[in-house]
């Protein structure tokens, strides 16, 4: 009996040992596969991101929504009217045009995340990347951080070595400005000049960094203003020294010998049409389009076509955004930037470049025919447009980036480079800096500079020196839909003024966007901007 008991007990123990002992085999570590890998915990030349991923991150600045929408819909250049059951979109476009956004606006959070993820990737490269990539990474970080500072008035910062639970510190607008300047000076010192090769503008160059530095200095008065009173700056705040530096930086860009202004309206459209990366002489910094040999995704310039064109046009769009009547009327009739026919384009698609107004046409079987709207009536774009109640054909549309059209397959593609920085903008900055008290050493005046652009566009040259208002108007005509209108209006103190469909002046604090609510609740170091 006793013997039996011992045998039994041994049996139980053995059974348990088999059950539990042999079985506890896994450490439960996660294994990843394929294109994914676990990020190394240490930095030092071992960064996870690569430079291509930072270039790719600038795609967040391209497209009809988010960043671009806040830069353009908030101004007189663009609005998104509700058309019956179309385009109400929960008021998202309307709220931007009316300056009626708040921290809950649905495009704010995506904008914030899109720009900031690029900022983090750039920081990984600057602080933990290969030394050879550093100057380019510094330019890219400055470029991306500028957008955060400009839109949101504060810049959060996460170091490459920070652990996952670190709450990012936040730089004020003034602190961020100085920080960005530091990156830019290092980038200018370390970057090569534009090589002049096709596609060279798609990469960081000395000239791109110089351009950005000039833009920042020109806007320094805005960025250094009191956050509680962000529009309280005057002419005195634009220091002569800064303005002279702007002029010198643009001179440096000119002296690279890579950039020039053309002589006819067609050369203006060379900056935007499908082969702009080959034909333009003005591209300083761009993102390559379809077919560009660059890492990461490509710019999608069809957004800038489709956002306005009607469903039934040759580039079938989504019949959305229009410009305001006042903005359209700010152009001279003969201005090639307003409307130009383009060879290899207009005779195939029925479109002109520039603004689309009046009866629209397309080609069917080689014949030019009227485009009809969805109820069968001729499609005639008219300047009058209501933000709340518009019908299908209301509003002047834009054709800033003429796409490539294949008349055989009846299809289109979008090889256009998307333009971030352009030489004409550099010259306009120079003209403005002279007017704001900077010293030019080459005898250029604001008038001679503006006239280069006016003559190229087929507009009567100025005969007297322009004032600041004239500079702003010329910037509008030259740079519309290039993502600078909001900044320009703020710098010239006009951002809060009424426009066609916004009848009252908006509050001064609206020159800075609110921090999205989700971001405020995720980071206790972020304080909601003044006024919101």
């Amino acid at each position, binding site marked *: 009996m006793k013997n039996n008991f011992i045998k039994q007990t041994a049996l139980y123990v053995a059974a348990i040992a088999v059950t539990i002992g042999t079985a506890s085999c896994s450490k439960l570590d996660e294994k990843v596969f394929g294109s994914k890998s676990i*990020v190394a915990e240490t930095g030092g030349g071992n960064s996870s991101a690569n430079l291509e991923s930072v270039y790719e991150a600038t795609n967040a600045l391209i497209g009809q929504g988010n960043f671009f929408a806040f830069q353009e819909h908030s101004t007189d250049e663009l609005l998104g009217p509700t058309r*019956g059951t179309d385009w*109400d979109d*929960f008021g998202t476009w309307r709220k931007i045009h009316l300056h009626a956004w708040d921290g809950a606006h649905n495009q704010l959070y995506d904008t914030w995340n899109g720009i900031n993820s690029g900022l983090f*990737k750039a920081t990984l490269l600057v602080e933990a990347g290969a030394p050879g990539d550093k100057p380019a990474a510094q330019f890219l970080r400055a470029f991306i951080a500028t957008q955060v500072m400009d839109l949101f008035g504060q810049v959060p910062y996460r170091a490459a070595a920070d652990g996952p639970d670190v709450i990012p510190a936040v730089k004020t607008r003034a602190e961020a400005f100085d920080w960005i300047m530091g990156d830019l000076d290092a980038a200018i010192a370390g970057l090569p000049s534009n090589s002049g090769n096709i596609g060279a503008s798609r990469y960081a160059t000395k000239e791109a960094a110089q351009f950005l530095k000039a833009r920042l200095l020109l806007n320094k008065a805005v960025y250094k203003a009191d956050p509680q009173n962000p529009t309280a700056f005057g002419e005195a705040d634009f220091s002569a020294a800064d303005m002279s530096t702007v002029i010198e930086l643009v001179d440096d860009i000119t002296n690279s010998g890579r950039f020039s202004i053309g002589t006819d309206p067609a050369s203006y459209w060379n900056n935007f049409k499908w082969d702009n990366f080959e034909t333009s002489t003005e591209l300083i910094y761009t993102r390559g389009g*379809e077919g560009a040999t660059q890492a990461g995704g490509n710019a999608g310039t069809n957004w800038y076509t489709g956002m306005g064109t009607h469903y039934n046009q040759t580039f079938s769009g989504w019949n959305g955004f229009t410009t305001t009547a006042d903005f359209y009327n700010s152009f001279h009739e003969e201005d090639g930037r307003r409307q130009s026919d383009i060879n290899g384009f207009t005779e195939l698609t029925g479109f002109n470049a520039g603004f689309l107004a009046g009866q629209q046409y397309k080609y069917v079987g080689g014949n030019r025919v009227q485009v009809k709207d969805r109820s*069968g009536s001729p499609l005639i774009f008219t300047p009058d447009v209501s933000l709340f109640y518009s019908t299908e054909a209301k509003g002047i549309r834009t054709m800033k980036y003429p796409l490539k059209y294949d008349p055989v397959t009846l*299809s289109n593609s979008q090889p256009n480079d998307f333009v971030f920085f352009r030489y004409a903008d550099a010259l306009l900055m120079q003209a403005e800096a002279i007017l704001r008290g900077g010293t030019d050493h080459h005898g250029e005046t604001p008038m001679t500079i503006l006239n280069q652009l006016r003559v190229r566009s087929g507009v009567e040259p100025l005969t007297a020196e322009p004032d600041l208002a004239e500079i702003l108007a010329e910037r509008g005509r030259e740079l519309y839909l290039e993502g600078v209108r909001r900044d320009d209006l703020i710098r010239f103190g006009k951002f809060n003024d009424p426009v066609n469909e916004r009848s009252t002046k908006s509050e001064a604090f609206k020159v800075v966007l609110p921090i999205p609510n989700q971001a405020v609740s995720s980071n206790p170091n972020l304080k909601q901007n003044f006024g919101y």
Partner: protein
Amino acid sequence: MNFKIVKSTFVGLFLGLLAVNAQAQNKTVTGKVLDAKDNTPIAAASVVVKGASAGTKTAADGSFAITIPSSVAKLVISSVGYSSKEVGAEGSVIVSLNQTSSQLNDVVVVGYGTRKVKDATGAVVSLSEKSFNKGMIASPEQLLQGRIAGVNVTSNSGEPGGAVNITIRGSSSVRSNNNPLYVVDGVPLYGGGTIGSGNDLGSTTARNPLSFINPNDIENISILKDASSAAIYGARGANGVVLITTKSGKGKPSLTFNATTSISNPAQRYDLASPQEFMYGIKKTLADAGIDVTNVGSNDKGYSTDWQDQVFRTSISNSYNLGWGYSNAKSALKLNGSFDDQQGIIKTQGLKRMTFGLKYSNQLTSRLKLDVTLNSSTVNNSYAQVTNNAGYQGSLIGAMISYNPTFPVYGTNGKWYDNQDGNRNPVAIIEGYNDKDVYKKILANISLSYKLTNDLTYKLIYGVENGSSTRNTFVDPNLGSAYSQGNINIRGKDYGGVSTLFSHGRAAHQLLDQNSAVIEHTLNYDKTFKNGNSLQALAAFSYQKTNDNYRAQQAWGPIGTTKMYTSWEKDYPVGNRTDVYGDSTQVELQSYFSRVNYTIKDKYIFSALARIDGSSKFSKGNKYGTFPAFGFKWRALEERFAQKTLGKIFSNFDVRLNYGMTGNQEFPAYSSLALQQESFTGSINVITNSNPNLKWETTTSTGAGIDFTLFNGRLNGTVDYFNKSTKDLLFLISYPQPAASADRWVNLPGTVENTGWEFSLDYQLVRPAYRGAFGWDVAYNMSFLKNNVKGFGSTVVNTGEVSGQGLSGAYAQTIRDGYPLFTFIMPTFLRFDAYGNAVYANGAKDELQGSALPTFNAGLTNTFSYKKLSASVFFNAVNGFYVYNNTANALFLKGSLKTAHNVTKEIVNNIENSINPGSVSSRFLEKGDYIRLANASLSYAVDVKKGSFIKGLNLTLSGQNLALFTNYTGLDPEVNVDKSINGVPSRGFDYTATPRAKTITFGINARF
């Protein structure tokens, strides 16, 4: 969690249990079990030592032999449908059992074992074949829809094989899905296995993970509703557990054959304007808006096409099932094969399924037993382009509703008519897409049990689940430009002008392989003591590894392609294909668990269990979680004092108390790690932020219940109360920028509370006076549920995307403190003003409305029998919830007419102004309350001569979804189109879903 501690805890626990163990002499008892009424043998009756659960089963001739310790005095003989009997455990016995309607002795599967209903301490409900829903059953959950209190089954739409939501005792998770864990023949299903959409019309809806199972092969479905039972599945038990047991062989060799033929039609259709009403509506609308109507006539192409007729069909489905099996004292075998061909009511929608099942057991030696089960299935799905988030052009149903009824189906060139107005011809959507998948699944497990002693059994289970799915989608090049949009950009790489490529036709090829292997070691101890008390104990280890591998590729046809090619291999040259892209994941789960049941005098039953689960999804140091549970049952009528009081009314009265914790780890693998990914163009992107602190979501539940029997067994009832509180809610929140990704998984503070009452009653209203006399049974169940989010602070999560033209960015649902999950939020619509513009309350401010979660569910089944006929009628009612009619919001607006989109008759005639925007508002939010005549069936048992080769023949006529009573203006309020935002689930949205069918089925069931 330290392994050594875990191990030693278990060893200690188990040794403690075994401390009292002495081996005694054995004896063998033989006997025969017969039906008391006609002395026919009862096969598969259970013969067990009193107080224990282990024992033997009778053979086909009712005989049994059992070897037991000589100390055992009594055996308990039981069988489903009979009252059990105790007999002396000596020599040879003949036992006659009386038929009964009481279910107390039914055996329920409880996970890692079975228990009798009377011994179960938890809230476990078991449903067997006779209570299943009848008719055309596409997948197992349809068998039990509406039949069980506290179990809410909502099919998302009427699509064959489409996704289903099963919520057991309410929704407790904010973020991850609320579907239960499925366990088939003891092996936890990994699930998943089907691939999403491969087209550009929007994403298709998810599939049902159970659609591979042959419903005919199911013997029993058990549902573990409360934590005291579900905690045995630890980290996966929080949403309840559904245990599916397939059929096993019983008795003499017999062959069964079932065949059904079903005819289905859409149960409801949209009440659309006729061509005349449509043209009248356009003219009036434009004239009212002051728009010139001279060109309006161009919209009238003079045809009269009912697009619903073009899309819907009367579908015919067939199902065949052949089974063969036997059992004897030594072995049992069941083979089962089936073929189903289900047509959807939308042309091209359908499902073909072939299954094979094998279940075999063999008592190899007196101590060693082998069990093998195999379920293999091949499902061919055919899809129509019904999607959940289509924009203004609509997917198939949207196009069907809004396409101009004066347009012809085909143009003069013989191609699909296309007015070049950007709208999509529904027939082109049907015929121009070929979208099919093949889904193969093998579920197999093999187990060996070895009786170490008479009381102690060791069991090894090895199970595999292999699924593979291939989905090919082909698009006809003749579809106009309106059908091809977007850009092929795969992981950073562009593939050229898409409209150029797609004008030659396009294809998408997707593959998904899923493998799961589970190995389990269990030790079962089962002992009845001399004083009649009994102890059952379980100690186990389980390890499961699952791998997922998804690959996809897209392609376009060669230049000049003019017809749709449907062979991926042959027709799409390698040079016209994109790179292969995809993703792989691996998840491991390792668990230790133990359960102890102790029964004192058949009166007090205690149950305690704990499971320690480790998952690879969590970071080091955080991998293990512990899930304990306790249950207690008091069988009141075993008390002498109660017999004199309660016993006068009740013939059975049990009180149950339970408490337990269960977990939920339903979030994507790798969420605790920082990951980077390389694009096809060489950029390396950090894609996730690490979160080392992530842990399970834990649900703590307490409950109490009463089981009672009245009127001499004619009334059986159960009342349950429960309270569930879910904490450490898994959620994806904003990650402080700048960072690699926008968000990361965390455990939110706050809880989701579910409290509820469940009642179920079975009443033999008319007890047949004799065999064949009229009988009437009524089964009724109902449940009340209250859901609330607590401690959420100021966190507000919006979900419920509203789709349609002009509705980008719109949402209609919110999760916030103090309200139930899935509460609707939107401005309150009051009326149209004199100009036909909408007037909203309080300046059109967003206001909180009702929730999409029902507060009341009920099911009522009446079963009648008379002679050879039996009939049953089943009604299902769901109340206290709201449905957002996104279909109406997107399409049924006056403004639709202005752009020549068709609408319902009601819209043609209402006073809305055509420039009134269709903003989200309570105008489209409706009460969903409904009562459905869900199932009715009539069956007839044909007389068969004794001794003829055919042993039984049954004919059945059944109808499903025969009538719907509701005030909801959409087609059917039982709808749940996925409108999640950033993965936060939504509930109660109706957006151009596949309508539900009304089905009549004729079935024949023969036994040989």
